[in-house]
């Protein structure tokens, strides 16, 4: 197990370095940053001055190592727009984004896994059809529309829930419901097909031939095998939720990282955008690492193979 973890850490670091280079270059090749900063009617001299001020006139690799070196020591620069430290901007808001992502992921999994297991034990019955129907509903309905309908119904008409802001836990109810329902179908389908596959396997027949309690067969012998791909997917979805809740954060005016990214792109605040892109990539890498470790813990063939 230790060897496996060390190997995974090594691979993760290599990926992280690659991603930081790509993330850094993407912004450089998106246009002449100095020209954009200097404004529309700036002269060539003014642009050159801006480039010099921000160090944009130096060779690419010098700029990268300067940025990466500072980033490693926790200095991501300042926002060009508000002059705040990028680190502070992000840490102030990451909590909200993180909370929403965790809640939505947990809600999605809590709905999907039991429903998937239930559907797999009774394939092609009304329970199965209902579960699949719910999945299709969740996938087909655009989440921004669902969010607006919920605001209208629970917020405006019934006045049960607050519709904007992130001050109390109540503010997270509607965004969580919306995102949870959005991510639920993929987990449900994967659990269901995984379980159908596993329930058909020889070792489940063995477990039944041993006279084991059916619940034990289902949850101990089948689910542990079927859940592995769901965990890998959960890691990816969690990354998606952290980076992709821009729309939800805008609709519910949740002041999270997604909303910050959205604002910064509009203002061409490149230190902020760059930091968020690289940070989210790192989170993805970390999550993939975690899901690998959990899978290895659950499946000895990965761990010892």
């Amino acid at each position, binding site marked *: 197990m230790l060897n496996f973890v060390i190997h995974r850490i090594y691979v993760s670091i290599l990926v992280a370095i690659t991603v930081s280079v790509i993330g850094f270059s993407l912004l450089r090749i998106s246009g002449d940053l100095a020209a954009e900063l200097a404004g529309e009617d700036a002269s060539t001299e003014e642009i050159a001055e801006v480039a010099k001020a921000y160090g944009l006139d130096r060779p690419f690799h010098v700029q990268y190592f300067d940025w990466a070196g500072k980033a490693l020591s926790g200095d991501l620069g300042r926002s060009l727009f508000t002059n705040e430290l990028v680190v502070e901007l992000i840490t102030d808001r990451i909590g909200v984004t993180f909370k929403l992502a965790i809640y939505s992921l947990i809600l999605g999994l809590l709905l999907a896994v039991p429903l998937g297991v239930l559907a797999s034990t009774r394939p092609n019955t009304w329970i199965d059809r209902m579960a699949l129907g719910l999945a299709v509903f969740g996938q087909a309905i655009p989440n921004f529309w669902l969010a607006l309908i919920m605001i209208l119904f629970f917020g405006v008409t019934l006045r049960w829930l607050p519709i904007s802001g992130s001050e109390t836990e109540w503010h997270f109810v509607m965004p969580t419901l919306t995102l949870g329902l959005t991510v639920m179908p993929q987990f449900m389908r994967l659990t269901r097909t995984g379980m159908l596959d596993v329930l058909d396997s020889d*070792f489940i027949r063995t477990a039944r*031939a041993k*006279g084991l309690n059916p619940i034990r067969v289902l949850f101990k012998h089948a689910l542990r095998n079927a859940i592995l791909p769901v965990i890998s997917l959960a890691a990816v979805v969690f990354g998606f939720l952290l980076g992709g809740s821009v729309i939800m954060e805008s609709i519910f005016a949740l002041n999270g990282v997604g909303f910050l990214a959205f604002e910064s792109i509009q203002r061409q605040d490149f230190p902020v955008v760059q930091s968020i892109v690289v940070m989210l990539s790192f989170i993805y890498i970390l999550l993939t690492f975690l899901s690998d470790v959990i899978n290895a813990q659950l499946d000895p063939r990965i761990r010892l193979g």
Partner: protein
Amino acid sequence: MTDDSRVLEAKNLSVEIEVPAGILHAVTNVTLHVDKGETLGIVGESGCGKSITSLAIMNLLPSKATRTASKLQLEGKDLLSLSERELASLRGNSMGMIFQDPMTSLNPVYRIGEQLEEVYIQHGKGNRKEARERAAYLLDKVGIIAPRERLSQYPHQLSGGLRQRMMIAMTLMCEPSLVIADEPTTALDVTMQAQTLNLLSSLQDEFKMGLILITHDLGVVARMADRVLVMYAGKAVETGTSQQVFDHPTHPYTQGLIQCIPVPGKTSNDGRLGSIKGMVPALIGDLRGCMFRNRCAYVSEKCHASEIQFNQISPGRGYRCLLEANECADNLEGNLGTEIVQ
């Protein structure tokens, strides 16, 4: 023979499976019994209902299958009247099953020890520690060196032969009175096959369980079985002691099967082995007449029409054919049993 020694008795066991094309008659009116310490070999080619018969006894049939029988008793207990929960308490406890493919029959994510122990604990035989003792004892019995270390290994760390021994040990955890071995050696290589069979028969001597050995390999049956049930197209076509069936095969199908075995010194090197032409017919829909007629060398008009009765020659000895027993024997003498494909 007292009733005490009878482990399993099944009368007119039938299994029908609903398929899109209609009703599949997988097993029709099979009658069999197994006594304590006795081995019954069930022989037949693929798709003739051997495995379904064993799954029907265990009540492990797929949900689309229905089982009927006029009698199905395990040690005098009527299996037909028990609830699924009561049946589960017998499975793995009084009756166990060894499956064909040891590579896929063990759960890949749990340690061997866990998989052996859970059946012991499930049936209330003892606590975790006692279960571990029992597991180590049985691994030793099935000839595994360093059993305690093996218990903490995972299935993928063991070879096929070792895994099949694990399966055998697992089946014996609760000392069942009936063990069904469904092609236990088919997935193993030849040297492991012999070892595994020897092991099964020595374990049977020791634990006195009734054994149903399902195989398509007549060599295995000749070696292991006390009595033989030959199945074709879901029906019993011949029964008898091993000696009777091998020395005087009566049904044309049994004769055909026996002629497929090469005999050292008798089968010539350049000649080809016997084979039975054709295939097992589909068992869907309304079936009448002899199922073997399309492959049989002695087929006549009568074979198409009526239901062929099972002729009882003596207790435990019988065959399902319209021919007289001595006619069949003569046929074999003349080596007309099957056509030899040149």
